[in-house]
């Protein structure tokens, strides 16, 4: 029945494109929200709606920290308090220094006024609400950076407990610094805003519209950030920190940015909330507020902008409408059946119990929230899945700019040693990769090959030696700086950003070559638009190199791809950074012979385009096909080096691979023949 009704009613919509349908829906929603206070002129309802908006703003801010960047912040309300007290202190009659002539210029621009209540002249701060909104965002963001700088290096779960502590400290400070905050009693006489001479006072309607405007603005900001280089960097950090930093993302910087912007949102909400209530008490910002915001984000969907706003609205509705209604209903039934328990029931006091239950149920049964951030993409059609794949080297190379390898050596590794406790993983290794060349590293398991890649890309510390890329020392640099210089890599055990799409993964590879900052990303400045378009174009070209392997799957999340396709995405991601040298860690591991051959051809195409390549590989046919020079590692030592043919016959290599006895047996066979 219901399904039929929906189908019938949506009939007229079929001719409209999804984008226009969205725009239409948004417009209808906006109109409904704009006329709501006129249609329903109930001050209590409008006040509730205005409160819901401030919680919506807070949920949006927390979503940037928790949902986008994956940093579990359990003390987010602290920044709400900072914004609130910032505005409160600079408008209330609490902090009032003695008047002196130095204050006159501030009085002239309207920040303070002379105040006399008998006794000496005092200074009364009169910070304008409109000025307070942006400055509170800046102040809170500053506090976010000050708090985040030492703590954001911590592992995720430690961060949760440290933020919890911070969220506890701020209300304690507010409670105990009486002279500034008036302690537990709270600030008195916080000024409401006024606009063109109209004082907002205590009526709810003006606050409703201000809240609506702020909420709309911050939804817009959230969406713009999410779809920009910044948002992609955050999501990469959330999915895999190591891979993110290896793809050129400065972890500390972008985590701090998420923390600061999230805190900024809370600062704005704090000013709005306090101006509306015209008081600020420490209890308004304790742990239960932080956890309520977490419930909103979890309920709506972590990382989902519309989801968290919905979460805020639903929780507000639950508290102010649903629970009182059900309580009244229960009382009525209690009267009817004469149950004293039902008559005395007050479900509003159960609010936090429901919060806890919501957290548990969402985590157990619907972790992605009511409106998931990741859209489900229908699987490919049978035709697309079984389409004839294109084999051979890379295709569509016309659009890929050639590399100019230059002359001399691209990579020079001299005497590099890495120790893990007592184990020497690499011992004084020397490797030279000529510009434009392909060098292969082989060796038994545990011989130090992957450690070699990790030390080149800055993921492990070296205990001596030197690694120079185009004459620049890499040792001591952070992974993201090394990528920026032009050294990109893939991982042995594929490290993609699993919940992101193919397109997003490869776009993140482009990160280091882009410049957008939060301001240009939000404003869509011409520079930002050109840059994004250029990046997309370059990424499309790279994906097109794989023929019809990846192109039809652009919008699929990589966790659903086949193993070989995930390998391809990882190579595409590394190429998107336009590296000067590509480090491939066992690219054909786990591939069948046909796929291996295809990939070998593709790597050869890259070499022919002039790209310098260092490759770890077990399959000797691949090595023979690609490499001009082969380096053999065993137990952290370089035991041989030379052309593939030379290395194949080397005695040390045979011993290392086959063991002494087997080696002798082989020798006997060879001798016998």
């Amino acid at each position, binding site marked *: 029945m219901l399904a039929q009704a929906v189908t019938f009613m949506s009939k007229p919509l079929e001719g409209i494109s999804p984008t226009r349908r969205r725009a239409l829906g948004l417009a209808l929603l906006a109109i409904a929200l704009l006329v709501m206070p006129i249609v329903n002129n109930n001050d209590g309802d409008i006040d509730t709606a205005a409160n819901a908006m401030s919680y919506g703003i807070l949920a949006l801010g927390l979503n940037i920290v928790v949902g986008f960047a*994956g940093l*579990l912040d*359990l003390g987010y309300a602290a920044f709400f308090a900072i914004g609130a007290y910032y505005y409160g202190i600079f408008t209330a009659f609490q902090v009032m220094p003695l008047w002196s002539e130095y204050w006159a210029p501030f009085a002239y621009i309207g920040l303070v006024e002379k105040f006399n209540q008998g006794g000496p002249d005092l200074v009364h701060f009169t910070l304008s609400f409109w000025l307070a909104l942006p400055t509170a965002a800046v102040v809170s963001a500053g506090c976010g950076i000050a708090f985040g700088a*030492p*703590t954001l*290096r*911590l592992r*995720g*779960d*430690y961060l*949760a*407990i*440290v933020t*919890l*502590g*911070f969220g*506890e*400290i701020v209300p*304690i*400070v507010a*409670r*105990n610094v009486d002279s500034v905050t008036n302690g537990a009693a709270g600030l008195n006489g916080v000024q409401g805003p006024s606009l063109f001479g109209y004082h907002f006072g205590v009526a709810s309607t003006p606050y409703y519209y201000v809240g609506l405007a702020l909420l709309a603005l911050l939804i817009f900001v959230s969406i713009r950030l999410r779809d920009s280089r910044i948002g992609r960097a955050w999501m990469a950090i959330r999915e895999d920190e*190591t891979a993110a930093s290896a793809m050129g993302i400065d972890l500390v910087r972008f985590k701090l940015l998420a923390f600061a912007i999230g805190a900024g949102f809370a600062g704005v909400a704090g000013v709005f909330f306090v101006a509306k209530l015209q008081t600020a008490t420490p209890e308004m910002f304790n*742990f239960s507020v932080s*956890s309520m915001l*977490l419930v909103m984000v*979890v309920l709506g969907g972590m990382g989902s902008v519309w989801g968290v706003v919905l979460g805020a609205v639903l929780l507000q509705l639950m508290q102010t409408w649903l629970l009182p209604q059900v309580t009244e209903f229960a009382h009525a039934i209690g009267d009817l059946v004469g149950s004293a328990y039902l008559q005395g029931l007050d479900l509003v*006091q*159960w609010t*936090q*119990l429901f*919060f*806890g*239950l*919501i*957290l*548990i149920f969402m*985590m*157990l049964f619907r*972790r992605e929230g009511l409106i998931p951030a990741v859209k489900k993409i229908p699987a490919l059609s049978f035709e697309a899945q079984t389409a004839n794949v294109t084999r051979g080297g890379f295709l569509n190379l016309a659009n890929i700019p050639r590399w100019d390898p230059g002359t001399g050596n691209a990579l020079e590794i001299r005497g590099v040693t890495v120790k893990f406790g007592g184990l020497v993983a690499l011992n004084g290794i020397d490797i030279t990769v000529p510009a434009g060349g392909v060098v292969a590293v082989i060796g038994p398991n545990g011989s130090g090959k992957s450690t070699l890649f990790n030390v080149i890309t800055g993921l492990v510390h070296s205990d001596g030696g030197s690694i120079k890329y185009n004459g620049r020392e890499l040792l001591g640099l952070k992974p993201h700086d090394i990528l920026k210089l032009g050294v990109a890599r893939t991982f042995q055990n594929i490290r993609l950003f699993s919940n992101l799409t193919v397109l997003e993964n490869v776009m993140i590879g482009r990160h280091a070559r882009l410049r957008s900052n939060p301001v240009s990303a939000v404003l869509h400045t011409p520079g930002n638009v050109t840059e994004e378009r250029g990046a997309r174009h370059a990424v499309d070209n790279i994906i097109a190199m794989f023929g019809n392997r990846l192109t039809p799957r652009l919008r699929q999340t990589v966790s659903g791809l086949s193993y070989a396709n995930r390998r391809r995405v990882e190579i595409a991601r590394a190429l998107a950074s336009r590296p000067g040298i590509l480090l491939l860690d066992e690219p054909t591991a786990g591939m069948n012979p046909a796929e291996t051959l295809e990939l070998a051809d593709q790597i050869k195409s890259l070499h022919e385009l002039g790209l310098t390549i260092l490759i770890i590989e077990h399959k000797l046919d691949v090595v023979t096909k690609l490499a001009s020079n082969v380096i053999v590692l065993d137990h952290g030592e370089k035991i041989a080096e030379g052309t593939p043919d030379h290395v194949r016959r080397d005695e040390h290599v045979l011993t290392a691979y086959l063991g002494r006895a087997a080696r002798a047996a082989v020798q006997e066979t060879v001798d016998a023949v």
Partner: protein
Amino acid sequence: MTSMDVFLQQAINGLSLGSMYALLALGFTLVYGIMELINFSHFNVFMVGSMIAMLTLEALGVVGQETVMTGLPLAAVLIVAFAVVMLTCGALGVGIERFLLRPLRNVKGPAAMITTIGISYVLFNVVLITLGSDAKNFPNPLPPIKFEIGGAVLRLREILIWAIAIILMGGLTYFVQFTKLGKAMRATAQDPEAARMMGVKVDRVVMMAFFVSSALAGACGLIFGLYYNLAKVDIGFAAGLRAFTAAVLGGIGNVPGAMLGGVLIGLIESSAGQIVGTAWTDVVIFGLLVLVLVFRPAGLLGRLAPNKS
């Protein structure tokens, strides 16, 4: 009182607080060591334990501060109360693990931690709704025996707390070091995958960790009541955070570390209360937590938890 007496008195107070924090910290450390999970429900399992202890003692006929017992009846009452509270809290912990956390064990990300926050909230609010938010008069059958050492006072309850804490910690150390299940627990902490392949029943180990830590939290709830003569719905948060700080300070995953950390935090709390005032004690403790995490994340005795990444 001379300053020496003040020092001695604060040392006595600090050791008593520290014994409680150590018992709670052990719970964090055991679970974190095995599952890399900060178990926020531990905060309120402790609080529930204190409520159960109160109801048990009342059921045994101990009323407020009026009933004073000595000798065998006292020992019997205490043993029964400890047994009841430790078993019920242990069962609560096992239930939490089995039904709410096990389905999330292999889920990446903060899902399990968020669930424990939800559980903590539910426990808190169930007690709030059923028993109310007022401070309850915790029944205390201990005779008011006290010894004066200079100007400082050492009460019987403090000696009792120390003794119980030492017995429980000794038992736990024996369990973890020398029993088969304890060894399985340590093996799982190092590498669950390898432990499973060596025939360790990981599910049982995890369940045991939750049972032991929740039972200790329950015992701690009873001790808390005997020490402060009160039970209140909001005691879990402050004590829990201190205990977590203690676990981190000692080195998370490290059983002796949790005991050392607990005692240190107790001493720091009592001296901070003396020096900067009780209103700021929380700030001192959290500040310490941040400093330890930033400058010595492995804690004093070294972190024994596996480092999965």
